[in-house]
């Protein structure tokens, strides 16, 4: 879950006000789209959730962790409750599919037996069974993003945060990916997807939070894309 109350964020280096008095709430088990034009504050909002930056004012709570007060060394604890998916997949090029996913478990100290059981299960869940030995450059964009989702999912996070996950994919693959997120959501994981793609958002009737110039301008649970991208 995410709770933001009156959150403002100014980048001191440039003086840019990225967020201005933003309040929103995402409950456990929800599927939420975050939409808005470039420079609207989406990335800042994502970074506040993942703990890459801290809000200057207001309150940010992510999966019961107070992100304004949390000590830097405690951040890994928050991140273990999150699965993060990026637009550019961010796979390790010299590791095969299996290792890219297993790597995420290894770095949080999972046992080998646990890894051997969990990784094949997650790969099957995202539709990549039989591709364990492939290297990232042998996969299509959609498959690479599935590996990234498997990696985000493998540590059983409470919430998946995806930043423009379909940005590099064609519409068919994008829809497939959204359906995969929906499937994951049905299994109980909260999903937050940042996207620009109107058709995609409209295809899945989910909650849409629109943000522009640092303000939440609409927050609809009726599943349609209520904000027109400039």
């Amino acid at each position, binding site marked *: 879950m995410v709770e933001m109350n009156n959150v403002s964020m100014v980048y001191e280096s440039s003086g840019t006000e990225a967020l201005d008095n933003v309040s929103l709430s995402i409950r456990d088990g929800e599927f939420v789209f975050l939409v808005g034009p470039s420079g609207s504050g989406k990335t800042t909002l994502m970074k506040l959730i*993942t703990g*890459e930056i801290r809000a200057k004012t207001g309150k940010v709570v992510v999966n019961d962790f107070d992100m304004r007060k949390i000590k830097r*060394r405690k951040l*890994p*604890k*928050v*991140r*273990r409750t*999150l699965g*993060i998916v990026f637009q550019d997949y*961010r796979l*390790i090029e*010299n*590791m095969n599919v299996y290792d890219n996913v297993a*790597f*995420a478990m*290894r*770095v*949080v*100290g999972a046992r080998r037996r646990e890894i051997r059981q969990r990784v094949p299960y997650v790969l099957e869940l995202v539709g990549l069974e039989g591709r364990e030995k492939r290297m990232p450059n042998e996969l299509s964009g959609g498959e690479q993003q599935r590996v990234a989702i498997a*990696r*985000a999912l493998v*540590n059983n996070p409470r919430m998946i945060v995806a930043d423009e996950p379909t940005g590099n994919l064609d519409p068919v693959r994008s829809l497939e990916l959204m359906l995969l997120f929906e499937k994951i959501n049905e299994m109980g994981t909260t999903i937050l997807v940042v996207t620009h793609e109107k058709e995609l958002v409209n295809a899945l009737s989910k909650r849409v939070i629109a943000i522009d110039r640092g303000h939440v301008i609409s927050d609809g649970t009726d599943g349609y894309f209520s904000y027109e991208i400039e």
Partner: protein
Amino acid sequence: MIREGFRSIGTHGFMSFATVTIIMACLIIMGSVTLLSLNIDRLIKGLENRNEVVAFVEDSYTEDQARALEDQIAAIENISSEKFVTRSEAFDTFMKSYSSDLAEGLDDQVLRDRYVIHLTDIALMEQTKADLENIEGVAKVKAHLDYAKTFVTIRNVVSVVSLALIAMLVFVSIFIMSNTIKLATFGRREEIAIMKMVGASNGFIRLPFVVEGLVLGILGGGLGYLAEWGLYELLTKKLVGSVAGSIFAVVPFAQIALPMLITYMAIGVFIGAFGGVNAIRSYLEV
């Protein structure tokens, strides 16, 4: 995570190879200059030892009286060794060195009993000469103070130049080695960012880098040491067979093997482990 460090050496094979090679090369250069300085120092010390001080005993002293002075001479602090030479032994040496015509009609009584003395530090030759002259029964002391001063100057210059050169090389080498490690980790910033994002603690991220750095450092240090050893043995063997080899004796590698091994390993371990940790520090601030 320790296994991760070893695995990483294999997966980043080329950078691992480059790091080991650079550490090895830097250590060989540093080690070679150090060994050269050590040998020059040894050569100067050898030449210094040939610079003897001779203390002549009073004419009136009998051989027994002259020999009795040895304890007093040996008690002087800066004297490393003293050898009593009787007037007849000195005469024989003289006869061998010069034409017998010169000594015709002379007998050994024209010479004095004497002590041939070697000093611990020739820089203190003047003081030692005075101490010898103060001993009752010592008639005269012959000491080449000018030579001694020249040797001391040469030795000091060589020491300063060697130290400066070694310090410079250490500085340059550490810079090169740490930059190589930085370069090796730069290519892995993405990997570190991913580790951070999946919730790895800084300690967990650091540990494989420490292990990897340690292994590469030990490898670089060990291989550098072996290469230095081989090179030194090869060069000294060639030197022993040449003219230079007859002038001075090189320092045997066995004599310096242990301190060199410890130094090489220590530098390798330090630069590997701390270089690795230092290089990834900025990537951990996410």
